[in-house]
């Protein structure tokens, strides 16, 4: 876990969380510690994934960031403004989509919802109108702009909820499970759009999701939480490097001599079948892969097929959770 230096605070940071702790008082019961002294930051223009099993403390952390839950200890700053002492000012540049398709008024139409949330953030309708039109078009909601939100499909409602967060015109976005319950096509569209927001729109996003594919596809960095603590805070690629042993299956034509190969690489399995040799090789890093391919070529060994047995984000996530220790 990367601790924050004092010098880092507010310098190009959209969000700074330091030693955040939240204990919920309980009537006649032991208090529950939901967040246990976590620290992390999000740079301006960055998109960070927030992962963890149920009860890990993700939602409490997100709600503390929004000023909806009062922390027991610690500091939270959004663009250098203290959330606890100056909530209104700090959240004025923040919008959030909490729990998928909620967050919108079901009796209002698509357009009325967009207009309401624009006005709620103090924007004039004249100023927001081009963006309203753009969001309706981008999310394919044009034909349904006069339809009450309750009549929209779940996917449409989620698109509208995200649009309502965007129409506020804030730089920092908190997205809690934005693709929950969406079909494959809509989820893909949503992911593409979220990526665009940081690359073209200059937004900063903290995204929590149970869907590892979403996190792997969309996020540059991942924070993994469990039992109120941060277990990992690193880029998706670094995490893959830490947890992947770079396992490959090589299928070679014929039965070539492998003694040199055995000395140089960690071969975990060899077997011969129908005039072919199948090798399972565990490599130290991705560079070793190219070395091995070159080696085979130099030895005139004909390579028929290579299969990458790397772990996906879901398997890495499970590894982090099962380790229960902080990943450095």
């Amino acid at each position: 876990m990367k601790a924050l230096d004092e010098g880092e605070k507010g310098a190009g940071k959209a969000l700074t969380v330091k030693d955040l702790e939240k204990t919920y008082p309980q009537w006649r019961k032991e208090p529950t510690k939901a967040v246990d002294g976590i620290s992390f930051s999000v740079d301006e223009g960055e998109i960070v994934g927030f992962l963890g099993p149920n009860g890990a403390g993700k939602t409490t952390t997100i709600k503390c960031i929004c000023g909806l839950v009062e922390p027991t200890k610690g500091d939270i700053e959004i663009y250098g403004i203290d959330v606890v002492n100056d909530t209104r000012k700090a959240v004025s540049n923040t919008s959030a989509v909490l729990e998928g398709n909620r967050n919108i008024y079901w009796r209002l139409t698509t357009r009325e919802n967009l207009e309401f949330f624009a006005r709620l953030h103090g924007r004039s309708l004249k100023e927001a109108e081009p963006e309203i039109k753009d969001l309706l078009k981008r999310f394919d909601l044009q034909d349904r702009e006069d339809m009450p939100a309750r009549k929209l499909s779940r996917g449409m409602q989620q698109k509208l909820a995200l649009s309502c967060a965007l129409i506020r015109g804030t730089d920092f976005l908190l997205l809690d499970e934005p693709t929950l319950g969406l079909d494959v096509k809509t989820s893909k569209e949503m992911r593409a759009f979220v990526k665009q927001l940081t690359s073209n729109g200059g937004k900063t996003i903290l995204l929590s999701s149970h869907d590892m594919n979403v996190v792997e596809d969309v996020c540059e960095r991942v924070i993994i939480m469990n039992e109120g603590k941060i277990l990992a805070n690193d880029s998706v690629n670094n995490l893959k490097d830490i947890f992947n042993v770079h396992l490959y299956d090589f299928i070679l034509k014929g039965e070539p001599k492998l003694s040199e190969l055995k000395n140089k690489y960690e071969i975990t399995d060899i077997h011969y079948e129908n005039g072919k040799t199948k090798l399972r090789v565990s490599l130290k890093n991705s560079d070793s892969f190219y070395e091995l391919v070159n080696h085979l070529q130099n030895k005139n060994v004909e390579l028929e097929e290579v299969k990458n047995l790397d772990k996906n984000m879901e398997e890495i996530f499970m590894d982090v959770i099962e380790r229960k220790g902080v990943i450095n």
Partner: protein
Amino acid sequence: MTMVGIFILFLLVFFGLRSFEAGTETLQGSIVGFAMWIFAVMAYSEMSWGLLQEARDGTLEQLYLTPSTFRRISAYRVFGSFIFQFILFITFLGIMMVVTGEYLSLNPGVIILISLTLLSVYGLGYIMGGLSLVFKKVQAGNQILQFLFILLLVLPTITDHQIIYFVPISWGNLMINRMMIDGLSLLDFTLFEYLILFANSFAYLIVGLFIFSLMEKAAKKRGLLGHY
């Protein structure tokens, strides 16, 4: 549908009273009382029930994520709904007068008395709304309170004890009755009568806002804001 049911209930009460040869003042009082009860219930529900609805739908949290304060947003909401409910009140009153044949004095000054009287109702709405943020079961008391409004509205006809100065809406309703039934104007009331109305209404509103603020803090501490 609810309004139709309430209207049928009103007709039963009104024609029941008429069959017992009740006086004009009692009959007209039942019209004002019923219309005021509906208005009070709508105003109260806007704050208490409306807040619960927002919490259930997940929009309450969104109202906290603004450069404004929740109290300011709810004040705009109260103002907007007051105008809408006042139009309903006048419409309902008109229909009741036409159906019963009992015509009341509609002095424009009545809007001032109604606005002031309802401040205490909004205060109660803030109290119940705030309490229900933390104690979710409090909403069960909402319906009881709606019927308590009937008692508070008829209280001045039962007693002239000073208690009517202190409980919500009773004193205001008495002044509204005197304006609409006895034909008084705003200038016919004494300074003392206005003082009671102002003190009563603002006291409930201020206490309501204070309790709401305390409950809001408690809800943020316990992570209950928006949870339902």
